[in-house]
């Protein structure tokens, strides 16, 4: 036994012994050596077959584990549900035990209009009272866009792989619905009103439900319908990668600096010289309108960008 241990220990020291060897971890991807990378479609198919065979063996070996896993998962979900139900059932009655609970909301409702100049309290709340959170929220969208760009934008590697038939890049030809007559005619009727409606929601966020996020989503949806009805080449005439980048950059930069200016003046007790306007007019609510426009631009570009990236791996033409 001791000799055995000594032997094993020296093997471990030398990096020869792999104690995890007999444990097949289904989640481990085994790297394929570079020289063995397959060049033809057939080889790729073989690789998939091989992997799925190995997967089957692993699954058979691990069936017991998966059974236990399912049971434990169900039990822990049920426990979480129980805990949450218990907590919700035992919450103190609203505003009774804790008089502080209504302090903030009542101020928003009662004085929101005077303080922010916005009839829509929600807009006043997210873009004025708690504008810092919304500043972060608009950058969440931008971050998601960056991640999708990293994953889906065509680069040298994916183009090479596509040339060898190992990777499918969507093209305009792929299930091209732009030759569809119904799409074109309905689009001609619908699109003007969709864009008008989107702009209306965007510009009227301080007075009625709406604002940057919802208005931008409508405009983005309009762009997507436009692209699928008339083809990407029509959109590419005005929506080049340069325009895409510039619009997103300028909207975000404007947002950051405008809000930075308001935070700076507010914290230092300076006058920020931004007129509140008459409530109800388009030009009212102080900074809310320009910020809504900036957010709307980012949302619209992000939505169309996602569609274009998924469809053809790029935002504008190559």
């Amino acid at each position, binding site marked *: 036994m001791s000799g055995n241990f000594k032997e094993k220990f020296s093997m471990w*020291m*030398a*990096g020869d012994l792999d*104690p*995890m060897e007999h444990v097949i971890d289904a*989640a481990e*991807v085994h790297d394929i050596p570079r020289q063995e990378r397959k060049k033809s479609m057939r080889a790729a198919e073989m690789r998939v077959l091989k992997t799925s065979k190995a997967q089957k063996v692993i699954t058979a070996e691990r069936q017991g584990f998966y059974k236990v896993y399912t049971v434990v998962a169900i039990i822990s979900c049920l426990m979480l549900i129980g*805990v949450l139900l*218990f*907590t919700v059932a*035992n919450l*103190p009655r609203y505003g009774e*035990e*804790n008089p*502080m*609970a*209504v*302090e*903030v*909301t009542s*101020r*928003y409702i009662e004085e929101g209009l005077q*303080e922010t100049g916005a009839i829509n309290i929600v807009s006043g709340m997210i873009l*004025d*009272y708690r*504008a*810092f*959170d919304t500043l*972060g*929220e608009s*950058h*969440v969208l*931008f*971050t998601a866009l*960056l*991640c999708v*760009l*990293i994953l889906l*934008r065509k*680069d*040298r*590697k994916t183009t090479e792989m596509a040339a060898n038939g190992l990777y499918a890049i969507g093209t305009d030809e792929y299930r091209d619905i732009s030759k569809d007559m119904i799409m074109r005619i309905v689009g001609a009727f619908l699109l003007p009103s969709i864009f008008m409606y989107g702009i209306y929601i965007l510009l009227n966020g301080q007075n009625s439900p709406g604002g940057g996020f919802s208005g931008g989503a409508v405009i983005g949806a309009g762009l997507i319908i436009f692209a699928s009805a008339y083809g990407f080449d029509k959109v590419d005439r005005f929506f080049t990668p340069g325009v895409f*980048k*510039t619009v*997103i*950059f300028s909207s*975000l*930069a404007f947002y*950051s*600096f405008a*809000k*930075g200016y*308001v*935070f*700076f*003046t*507010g*914290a*230092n007790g300076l006058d*920020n010289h931004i007129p509140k306007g008459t409530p109800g007019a388009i030009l009212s609510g102080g900074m809310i309108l320009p910020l809504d426009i900036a957010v709307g631009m980012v949302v619209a570009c992000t939505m169309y960008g996602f569609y274009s990236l998924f469809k053809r791996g790029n935002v504008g033409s190559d």
Partner: protein
Amino acid sequence: MDFITNFPLFTIVLSLFSGALCFMLSGNAAKKYTLRFQGVMIVLCAAVLFYTIRTGTSFTYVMGEFPAPWGNEIRAGSLEAMTALFFMVIMICSVSGGYRFVDMDLDESKVNLYYALLNLMTAALMSLIWTNDIFTGYVFLEILTLTSCGILIVREIGRTTLAAMRYMILNLVGSGLFLLGVVLLYDFTGHLLMVPMRKAISLLWAAPANRPTLILSTGILTIGLAIKSGLFPFHFWMPDTYGYATPTSGSVLSSLVSKAYIFLLIKIYYRVIGPEIFAQMPIGRILMVLGICGMIFGSLQAMSTNNCNRMIAYSSAAQIGYIYMGIGIGSTAGYLAAVFHIFAHSVTKSMLFLTTPRLAEVSGDSLKFKEMTGSGMRDRDAGAFFLVGSFSMIGIPIFAGFSSKIFFGLAAVGSSNIKLILVMLALAVSSMLNAIYFIRTSIRIYSMPEGRDQGEVRAHHRIGYNLPMFVLTAINLFLGLFSWVAADLIEHGLMMFG
């Protein structure tokens, strides 16, 4: 009001702007810009630190025209400023020590996106450090989650994509639980700013009927952040995530991102729940037990892997366990030890993650121990820095790891007998296990490969090439030799933290 009080705002807004700017720049320009910008950030954070030490108090900064319970607010004390400064130093070292590998691992058309993500991550880290509002914490937690998945997938080998998927799912579960906790606490208190929340919670805690629900809400929030930072039963994403990312990402993820979640958790315990009330909750004890389990199991798993980066990643799980153990002790000394270990571990782990790729580079791009035999002699600088990192991890005197173990011991001595025995045993066993696998690795990289000569020796004479490593070594030695300076600062910071 002094002008310096505006600097925390500037750090956040400028890094958000830098993220958008790097999106426009070319890859190389984005890299140069990011490095210079991080230099500016270090100056800003250092100024705030000097200001808070000089005035001896923390200050709140209203974000907009509306004061505390109605509008957002950030707050800076010396602990926040110190953490922000430290995070920025680690960040600039990780970027400057790893950009060579970023250029190798990434497609060149996507390098600028990588730096854009890093700048957004900086903004999120800064906001989590400065915020005095729990919902702002959630918003920037989301940015941190997305950016950390983003800097993981940029390498685009199958393995990182898979690891990123797993990491993202677990992280979203964590975010969801955190959000549930925040919603429940908001329902209790009617506030989202930390100071009024604490007032309302101490009012509600007085009625015993509210206690179970308050404990459960805090518990849900804690589990969320524990999943995200990789506490014991939730640490299985760590080796894949840290082990295969490009070195800068591995270093940033392990030393900054997971620590930012823990910093937010400590902030919530101090500012929202209040340390006295938290001490009455059973959560601390559970965290301590889980932390100790993590210390032991993380080390055992680190011993049984054949890949150097995976070993270091598993050892991260063990070190996260140390930090949670410190929080679980519950006294000020415990928090001090936990915060000190956040610093000590960050500086050591980033160093290890930045040296192993250099050792792998001279070993045929392999991180397997067998191929790495003798790599310390082929790249002498990298070998030496790896040794510094391992010694600090083991806890050899004069290095930072030793001081943090002393602080954990001291914190345990001040608490109850059971905690004392548990902590001391855990420290002893875990240090021994740490020593076993780090000494094994050190011996491996310094032994002569069998049957062949030592191989080509790489010489790097330019000082700039190793500069980030020298900076990290200097901080490590400073934390080890002058630990009382750092400890005084942290204690002072914790006093004005609550």
